């Protein structure tokens, strides 16, 4: 089981690792449909993943909205397209910036924390202790965490989008005297379900990828405390790479539907 990132440059190791992650994902789908679900643990994880990430995601979304508007505004003014700012900002944030930035933040915060937590449980035999006490540790630890991240990430994305749009509004209001109602009228006139649905759907996949990789690396951690650190680190790197691959696939698929 590679604990470093060597497998990225080694073809055979890459396919080995991809195969193992696929088997881990297949086991998740087998276990998730098998009752009973660990509801209490799932709710606890939703709280940890969702509520405890609100501030970080909110602040990041707000700053991204501000920065994006400040950076693009001069160019739009040069082209005499200042009036299109709300439309452009809203589409960029809702379609792309909101989901990918939120997912990357969560890969860093949640993916590493899951990798480290499960890795530490693995090397200190807590997972074995759980198993001998008659609990299925995969169901208790892995299924609940992957489900929690999958369910919470779209909600965090919606929150980040909203706060980001508000950040952009502040710039428009301060620099362009655009009122709140005018700004949000323009925003909602330009956002359609064709923007919201794909970005929400891909957020579910982003959440699944973050949870899956964090759990996979943590659950299979080896080599003591060094292995725990490696699990957390590699979980973030692989999840981040995977997010961009998923984003590319999502954009290509969405593009097909736009062309229809």
């Amino acid at each position: 089981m590679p604990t470093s990132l060597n497998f990225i440059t080694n073809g055979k190791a890459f396919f080995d690792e991809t195969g193992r992650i696929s088997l881990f994902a297949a086991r998740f789908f087998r276990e998730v449909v098998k009752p009973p679900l660990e509801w209490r643990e799932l709710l606890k994880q939703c709280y940890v993943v969702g509520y405890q990430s609100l501030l970080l995601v909110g602040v990041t979304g707000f700053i991204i909205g501000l920065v994006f508007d400040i950076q693009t505004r001069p160019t739009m003014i040069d082209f005499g397209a200042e009036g299109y700012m709300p439309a452009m900002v809203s589409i960029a944030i809702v379609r792309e910036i909101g989901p990918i930035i939120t997912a990357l933040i969560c890969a860093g915060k949640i993916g590493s924390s899951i990798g480290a937590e499960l890795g530490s449980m693995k090397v200190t035999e807590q997972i074995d202790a759980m198993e001998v006490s008659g609990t299925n540790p995969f169901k208790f630890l892995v299924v609940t965490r992957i489900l929690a991240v999958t369910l919470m990430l779209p909600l965090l994305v919606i929150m980040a989008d909203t706060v980001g749009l508000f950040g952009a509004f502040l710039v428009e209001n301060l620099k362009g005297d655009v009122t709140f109602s005018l700004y949000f009228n323009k925003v909602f006139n330009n956002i359609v379900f064709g923007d919201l649905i794909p970005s929400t759907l891909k957020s579910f996949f982003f959440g699944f990828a973050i949870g899956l990789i964090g759990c996979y690396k943590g659950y299979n951690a080896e080599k003591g405390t060094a292995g725990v650190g490696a699990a957390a680190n590699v979980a973030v790197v692989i999840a981040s790479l995977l997010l961009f691959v998923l984003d590319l696939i999502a954009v290509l698929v969405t593009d097909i539907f736009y062309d229809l």
Partner: protein
Amino acid sequence: MQTSPQIQANPLIFNEKERGAPLIEIRDLHKAFGNHHVLNGFNMDLFERENLVIVGKSGSGKSVLLKCIVRLEEYDSGSLKVLGSNISELGQDELDRIRSDVGFLFQGSALYDSMTVRENLQFPLRRHADRMRGEDEEKLILSALESVGLAHTLELMPEELSGGMKRRVALARTLILRPKIILYDEPTSGLDPITSKEIIELILKVQHQYDTASLIITHDMDCARVISNRMIILVDGINYGEGTYQELAGSSEPKIRAFFK
């Protein structure tokens, strides 16, 4: 190392007729990791109310043996029966039922560090609610903690406990389902001599109180001397020597004598 006069290993009489069927019966057990053979035809019986100690060097396969008994590791060949059931043939439900009769004290205690002491003890209880039906959960938790002398730690987190206290709480968690057998993986490793002595006395006290059979893996010969009714010396994956502490200590076999120097 001395123990208090009241707490001593059970003076069992190892008479074929009196000891009944073994709780754990292992025959010709083999286990290898790649080319490294850790168990090479190991045999063992554990009887009711017995303290059987297995000693061996680090890496000799002692912990792997314990893990095979509760099927945390699969063995390669041989036969391993726990409470009359062939452990490798059990379905998940049946395996969980057998596991609830076999407590396991891990070397590093393995307390769930995101849970309080109370939640650590609640965890196995809630998994086996049917087994403990009609019993007051709070009473069971308190009674298990009182038997290890740590009733005051109920709301503490594992990180707030010392190494010895963690080992005691882990023992309480093991005891809470009232198992018939307890497996101890190096119960005194990493502890200072005074705490080790306390843990040994506790193991003997618990065995008297709960009437369990114990299989203890250790390389601490003081622990083995005080605690054992019978010992097995594990060398090269087989039971190289077997008998009471005194019998083995008097052996002229160099590989056995090496443990008593």
